[in-house]
Structures are given as structure tokens and as C-alpha cells.
């Protein structure tokens, strides 16, 4: 029965093949053990062979993993309590070291890493003000933490790719103080705007008033000059004419003044010895 034998052989071969090979995914790194002892590490992705029963392989996630710890409170240098949320990105660098240090348990690695990070953050925040931590030296903190984490991560066989502080929040009571400061600040700005507006408005009004006064005064000056011209001209005209006979002018001007000086309501008390009455008292008119 060669066909049956063939079948059996093929089956056996398949079983042997199954037990003597292992596949490492692109996402993974593998360790090969011989009776519990690591014989090969950092095995590349692909198909690999091993002795059945004697060897066994374990695979670990070689991708970048996330340590996302719970938000934690830290004291800053001005003794304000800030809540900091951060995450770290790490991956296995040395699989055998990682295995020895953590027995291949990811949670184990995470908790140790998290401890390192929190210590580091506590130190860094303790040295800084909120303002420095929030803005100026945020990336510096992250770099320091990355360095610190990496030196300690060496023994875990991992590599900390990145440490990022995501949120730095003030506790509620401090937030309230911030809000009232912001309000005060806005009020200041608002008052400033209004005051500036009034200042400018007053300036404009004053300028307008000044211009008006100047315009009117200038016009008055010019107008008076014109009137003066008129007066002068008329005076010279009069003088020129009346100089022809000053005495006659005096006479004329006087009688015209009499005419206009005495109106209807005036009462004149007369004695008949003026020139007008020359003939008044004489009989016969001579």
C-alpha cells in the first residue's frame, strides 16, 4: 500500500513541519528557547525552524506601544497643584533583556515605566513654575523625561520613543482664581478701550472747537479790516468833498442834524429872538 504510506508520510511530515517551524509576524519579535534557555533573540519576521519539543518560540509585540497613565497631580515650584496627563511611546528594543526583566508581561513593563515617568515628572515640575511647565519648557521636560526614561529603560530592554505631556490642568480653586484674574484683565482692557475712545473724542472735539474759534476770529479780523477800508475810503471822500467849503458844510450838516434830532414827540420851548423869528414880532413884515 504505497499510497497509504505516502499519505502517512505526508501527514507526518506536515505534523513535523508544523512543530518544527514558527512564523514571526512583521509586527513581532521572537525569542527562541531551548528547554527554557534563550538561544536566539531578535529573530526577524518570516518563517523559522526549530527542533520540535526541545525548542519553543515566543513572540512579542515589536510595535510602538502606549503607556497612558492616569492623570496625576504634581506640585510646582510655587506650590500649586497641577494635574498632568501624559503618555509615553515605547517599544521593545532588546527582546531577551525585556523577557528577563519582565517575564514578557507587558503590564509589568508598563507599571515600571510609569513609575519612572512619574518620578521624573515630579522632579521636573518641582523645579518649575506653572508658566514654565506649560509653555516655555514643555518640550524640555519631555526631553529630560525621555532621557531619564531611556537610561532606566535600558534594564527593561525597551526603548522610550517619546514622552509627551498632553494636559496640564489647574485644580478647580486655582482655575477660579484664573477666571477672576481673566475677568479683571478684560475689564481693564475694556476700560482702557473706552478711555482711549473718550480721549480721542475729546481731542477731536477740542480741535474742532479751536478750529471754529480760529475760523471765526480770522473772519472777524478780515471783516473789520474790510470795514476799516470802507470807513477810510468814505472818510477821505467826505473830506475831499467838504474841504471845498468847510463853512457851508458845517451849516448844511447842522441844519440837517436839527432836522433829524427833533422828532414829533419833542417839545420845543422857543423865544422869538432867533433868526427864524426875524419877522415874527414885526408888524407888517418889515
Amino acid at each position, binding site marked *: 500500500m*504505497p*499510497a*497509504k504510506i505516502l499519505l502517512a508520510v505526508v501527514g507526518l511530515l506536515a505534523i513535523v513541519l508544523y512543530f518544527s517551524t514558527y512564523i*514571526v*509576524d*512583521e509586527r*513581532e519579535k521572537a525569542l527562541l528557547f531551548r528547554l527554557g534557555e534563550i538561544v536566539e533573540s531578535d529573530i*526577524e519576521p*518570516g*518563517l523559522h525552524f526549530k527542533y520540535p519539543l526541545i525548542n519553543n518560540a515566543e513572540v512579542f*509585540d515589536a510595535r*510602538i506601544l*502606549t503607556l*497612558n497613565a492616569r492623570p496625576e497631580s504634581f506640585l510646582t515650584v510655587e506650590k500649586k497643584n497641577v494635574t498632568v496627563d501624559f*503618555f509615553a511611546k515605547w517599544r521593545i528594543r532588546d527582546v531577551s533583556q525585556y523577557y528577563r526583566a519582565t517575564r514578557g508581561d507587558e503590564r509589568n513593563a508598563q507599571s515600571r515605566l510609569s513609575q519612572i515617568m512619574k518620578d521624573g515628572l515630579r522632579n521636573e515640575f518641582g523645579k518649575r513654575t506653572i508658566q514654565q511647565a*506649560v*509653555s516655555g519648557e514643555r518640550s524640555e521636560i519631555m526631553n529630560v523625561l525621555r532621557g531619564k526614561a531611556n537610561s532606566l529603560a535600558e534594564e527593561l530592554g525597551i526603548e522610550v520613543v*517619546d514622552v*509627551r*505631556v*498632553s494636559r*496640564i*490642568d489647574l485644580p478647580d480653586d486655582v482655575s477660579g482664581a*484664573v477666571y477672576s484674574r481673566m*475677568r479683571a*484683565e*478684560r475689564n481693564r482692557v*475694556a476700560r*482702557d*478701550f*473706552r478711555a*482711549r*475712545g473718550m480721549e*480721542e*473724542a475729546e481731542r477731536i*472735539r477740542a480741535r*474742532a472747537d479751536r478750529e*471754529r474759534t480760529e475760523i471765526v476770529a480770522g*473772519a*472777524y479780523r478780515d471783516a473789520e479790516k474790510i*470795514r476799516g*477800508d*470802507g470807513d477810510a*475810503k*468814505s472818510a477821505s471822500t*467826505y473830506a*475831499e468833498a467838504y474841504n471845498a*467849503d468847510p463853512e*457851508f458844510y458845517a451849516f*448844511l450838516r447842522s*441844519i440837517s442834524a*436839527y*432836522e433829524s434830532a427833533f*422828532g*414829533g*414827540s419833542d417839545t*420845543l*420851548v422857543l423865544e422869538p429872538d432867533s433868526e*427864524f423869528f426875524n419877522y415874527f*414880532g414885526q408888524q407888517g413884515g418889515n
Partner: protein
Amino acid sequence: MPWNQSNGERDPWKADGQGPPDLFDFFRKLFSGGGGGFGKFGSLNIGLVAALVVAVWLFSGIYIISEGQRGVELRFGSYSMTTLPGPHWHIPWPVETVEEVDVDRIRSAQNQSHMLTQDENIVEVELAVQYRIKDASDYLFHVRLPDVAEDFRDQSVGTLFQVMESALREVVGKSRMDFILGEGRAEIAAMIKQLMQQVLDDYESGLEVVTVNLQQSQPPEAVQGAFADAIKAREDEIRFINEAETYSNGIIPQARGEAARMMQEATAYREKVIANSEGEAQRFLKLHEEYRKAPKVTRKRLYLQAMQSVLSNSNKVMVDVEGGNNIFYLPLDRLMKGGDGRSSSTPPSGASEGASSDGASSMRDNVSSQVRQAIRGARENRNAR
């Protein structure tokens, strides 16, 4: 040829009367036939089946990548190649496997939260990020949970979301509040995009940030009133200035008009006095010319004319007494009062003089008669002397 022969061999098996052959029987017969001494024909059967199996197996390696996707082929778990849209073939399982990745689909993530600014204020920012996968193999292999699809409940466990939040807070933390709320929105979005892309590239996550929108940036609710007032104050500033401009625009042209009126009036005055003076001068000169021809008569005439006009237009009291008579009483106050009453009750036109105020004129007549009596008395005195 072997096909025919094998067919020929089948007949006797069917004659065994084992019913309709199912696959199992088929195989069993195939192998038993092989074992039955007909080695040559048996191996042919095995070859046929093997070929069929191989064909099916090979056929199972055909796959189609639709538009907007990429296929990532893995050979024994190890990355071999990325395939483009269209039909493809891979060495079938278990040698090669294919994973399909949506590369062109735009995905999005949103985040809204309070955060601190550089000047220690708190702002509320809503950020939306659109991203896509730019490299399918990086996306699959380098980061665990590169992103979490939108419809999942918690996007925040995805790397993209974490990077977004940290970049947002880092950029906001480095900017001043006025900048974030005001002119800096676009710039902040650009900075966030750049920072996110840099971090995602560091992770080799295979993700590409397409757009970052700062959808909303506003002060927290607790202080919005004060902010609104500040904005109103800015409007007020402009309003105050505008009102002042209005005032200014109102009075300056008015002043110019007033000035023009003053000039015109002055000019009018000048022209008037000059014209008057010229007229009067001419009149004088003309009269004087005639006067010179007959000075005495003209003079007399002018004088009498004027006196006549004076005396005919006013009340008069003739006192025809010589000096030395001191007891002569003129009730001047009553005369003046009469004049006052007259002037207040009637217009001072000469035409209506006599008719208008009987009371006044009768009183005047009264006064005149008194005066006349006094004068008569005085005359009698004089005559008696």
C-alpha cells in the same frame, strides 16, 4: 491518452455497485486503485487530484484591491510588498497573506477641551483633524493602535488622538491668549499640523495629517461676559470717536459759513459806506456849486426850510418874554409824560399824529393853555410896570 485509459478503468469499479461516488469514495478508490497493483494508473489519479488541489489552492491566491485601498502582502508574516488597486495574485495561504488597508479615505478626529495658555489664561478650543493613511505597511506594522475609527466610543486610546491632544496643548501653551482667540487661529492650526506630522513621522505611523481646523477658540464660559464687554468696549471706542467726528464735522463747516457771512457783511458795509460817502459828497458838491452862485439866498432858504421842518414836526412852546421875569412855571414833567404816553401808544409817523391820541393831544392843549395864561399874566405884569 491516459485519461481515456483511466476512464476505461473506472467501469469495473462502478460495477462494484457501491452507489453514487462521493468525494470520500472517490479518494478512497483513487488510492485503493493505486494500491491495487495498477501503480501507473494510480499515480496518474493522484497527480490529477493533486493538480486539482493545487489549482484550487493557487486560485485562492487571487484577490482584488479596490480603488482607494492598498494590499499589503506578508510572506510567512514578513512584509513582502504593497500592491495597488486592481487584481492581484499572491502565493496562497499559508505562505502569503494579504491585508487590505483603506489609504485614501479621509478620517477625522475631534477634540474639545479647556487648556492653559502661555499667559496662564484658560481657553476653550475645539480642534478637528482630518488625516489619511499615507503608507499602508507603516500603518500596519509600526504602531499598535495608530488610530481609532470615529464611530468607536473612545478615540482617545488611539495614537493619533493622543498626538493631536498633546500637540494642541503644546502649541496653545506656547501662545498668548489674544493670539489664540484672535488673529492667530490659522497659524496655530498650521503649527499643530506640523507638530503632529513630525511626531507621527517619528513613530513611523504611516499617517498623514491632511488638515487641522481650529473650529472654535473662545474664552471659558465663566468669563465670556467680561470678554464680550471688552469687545463692546472696542466698539464703544470707535463710537466715541465717530461721535466726536460727527460733532467736528458739524461745527467746522458751520463756522466756515459764519466766517463767510461775516466777510460778506463786512464787504457789504464797506461798499455801503463808500457808496454813501460818494453819494453824499456828490450831493454836497452839486449843492455847493449852486450855493456859490447865490450864497445868501440859498443859505437862507436852506435854513428856513430846515427850521420849518423841525418846528412843524414837533410840539413847540413860544415864550415871548423878555428876561427879568423869573416866575414862569413850565410843567415839564407833565409835558414829557404826555410825550411818553403818546410815543408808547402810537407809531411815530407824522401822518397819524393828530388823529391817533386824543387824550395826549387834549392834555397838551391843556398844557398849552396854561402856558398861554402864564404868558398872558407875565405880559400883564410887564405892561403894569
